């Protein structure tokens, strides 16, 4: 590198400066000279030099101050200090301030050559380290990309494995129901007929659910958001499931924060999400043994406004005017039940395709599809820790309703 052979020489003594400049030029350096630290800084700013040789003792700004100033301006600049005989303390101070080396007066050519080559080595090493670090960063970035790709592949593998398990189970169920029905008919055994019929019904239902869920899951999420009352999907779902809950002896309640402004969302898509969550919650209550024989199973749905910034009052939207709608508030849907809960071991896989805690009853696509819809809204879904037993799911959707006509 040609720039590596360029240096800036700083000394207030004309004789030394001239003599050193000649010597250095003679061994191939391009030398610029300065009479003072101030002049040196000005020259350096004009055009940096890889190496600066400076006397320590100078009127005005001294060599150590120049060293500090240079390092602030350009940490890669290498500085060689010239010290008087017996100025060892100053030299040590200089090294502590990250000088490359020092030479003592009277300056011997070989000592100067060694100091300069050390300075150049330090510079080269620093550059090598920087390149290495950059390379490492690139390497990390590349490996990260590879890892992500591998994870995606693993997710596909998991999906296929889960799907194959579900399909094999259903195929077994269908095979089994056919066997039972035939045996029941041949041997005139009512018990087999009943079991076979039940099995057929259950597996046909499962097949239907799985295939419809898969269709929905495979379809890219195209939302049709429109400004609506965010409580609307919750009202519809609770109305829809109220008869089922009542028939199963479970309590289903809806609690809507009054005066919610309009929100920009796809009410139909959120309807499906809430249907999934509330349906799961009812199943969980039944799974915990609640029912007509054992009352006490409860599913509570709440819709409320949530402000992301703690500075805004959480019920700031309660004023009831749509005027505040453009702000950064979110709609929070909360579905809480006191059912059988979700074991810790299952929490990590809840939103994975074909994973279900409902055994053969779940397709393992409901929560996954719900998550997809929620994320398409720019929102999030999370499992909150329930107080005591049960499960609490929360969907948070940014309500970013902007009226583009205004």
């Amino acid at each position, binding site marked *: 590198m040609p720039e590596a052979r360029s240096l800036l020489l700083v000394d207030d003594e004309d004789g030394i400066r001239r003599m050193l400049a000649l010597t250095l030029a003679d061994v191939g350096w391009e030398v610029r000279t300065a009479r003072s630290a101030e002049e040196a800084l000005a020259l350096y700013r004009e055009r940096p030099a890889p190496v600066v040789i400076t006397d320590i003792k100078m009127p005005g700004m001294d060599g150590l101050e120049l060293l500090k100033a240079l390092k602030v301006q350009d940490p890669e600049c290498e500085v060689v200090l010239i010290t008087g005989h017996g100025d060892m303390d100053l030299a040590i101070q200089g090294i502590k301030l990250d000088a490359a080396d020092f030479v003592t007066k009277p300056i011997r050519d070989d000592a100067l050559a060694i100091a300069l080559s050390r300075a150049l080595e330090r510079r080269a090493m620093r550059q090598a380290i920087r390149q290495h670090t950059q390379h490492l960063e690139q390497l990390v970035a590349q490996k990260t990309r590879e890892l992500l790709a591998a994870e995606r592949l693993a997710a596909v593998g998991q999906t296929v494995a889960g799907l194959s*398990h579900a399909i094999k189970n259903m195929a077994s169920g269908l095979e089994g129901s056919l066997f039972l029905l035939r045996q029941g008919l041949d*041997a005139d055994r009512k018990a087999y007929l009943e079991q076979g019929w039940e099995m057929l019904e259950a597996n046909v239902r499962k097949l239907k659910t799985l295939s419809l869920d898969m269709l929905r899951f495979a379809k890219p999420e195209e939302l049709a958001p429109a400004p609506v009352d965010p409580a609307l999907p919750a009202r519809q779902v609770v109305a829809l499931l109220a008869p089922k809950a009542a028939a199963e002896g479970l309590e289903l309640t809806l609690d809507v924060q009054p005066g919610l402004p309009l929100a920009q969302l796809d009410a139909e898509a959120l309807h499906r999400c809430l249907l999934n969550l509330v349906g799961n919650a009812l199943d969980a209550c039944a799974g915990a043994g609640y029912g007509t024989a054992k009352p006490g199973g409860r599913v509570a749905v709440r819709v409320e406004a949530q402000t992301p910034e703690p500075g805004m009052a959480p019920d700031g939207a309660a004023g009831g005017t749509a005027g505040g709608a453009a702000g950064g508030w979110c709609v929070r849907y909360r579905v809480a039940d006191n059912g059988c809960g979700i074991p810790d071991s299952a929490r990590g896989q809840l939103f994975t395709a074909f994973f279900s805690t409902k055994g*053969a009853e779940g397709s393992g696509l409901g929560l996954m599809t719900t998550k997809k819809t929620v994320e398409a809204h720019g929102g999030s879904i999370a499992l909150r820790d329930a107080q005591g037993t049960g499960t609490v799911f929360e969907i948070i959707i940014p309500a970013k309703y902007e009226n583009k006509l205004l």
Partner: protein
Amino acid sequence: MAGGAGTLGRVLVVDDEMHLRLFIKAVFESAGYETATARDGEEGLAKLKEFRPGLVSLDLMMPNQGGIRFLSTLRADPEFAETRVLVVSGVEDETFRHSLALLQAAGVAGGALRGPDGYVEKPPTAEALLREAKRILESGAETGRAPNVEPKEA
């Protein structure tokens, strides 16, 4: 019907899937075997002691205690040296043998674990279940004659 002395033998059906339990139980029952069922490996081991089956129809992927744990516990107990095992699973035979060989290599399965005596992949058919059961129980007269599990690939 589950009858006493006149049956072909006793089959314990271990599967976490209710429909499969019902199905496999009905297959053996209607062919003249006496049957009992268990929902996982743990319950299966308890039933082994009281029911003393000649054959166990064993699922592999079950909660609580999976099929391989059940198999190694059963094989380690001299009391059940005569009990034959028919694996009925959605896991492919090949895959299962490979993982069993890996477990053996790692010493997890307690050294030389004898593999299952037969294998039927899910979804099972009544014919395949009965054919395998018959083959296993007939060859079972010669103790230890049942095929050992060996890795297919070196």
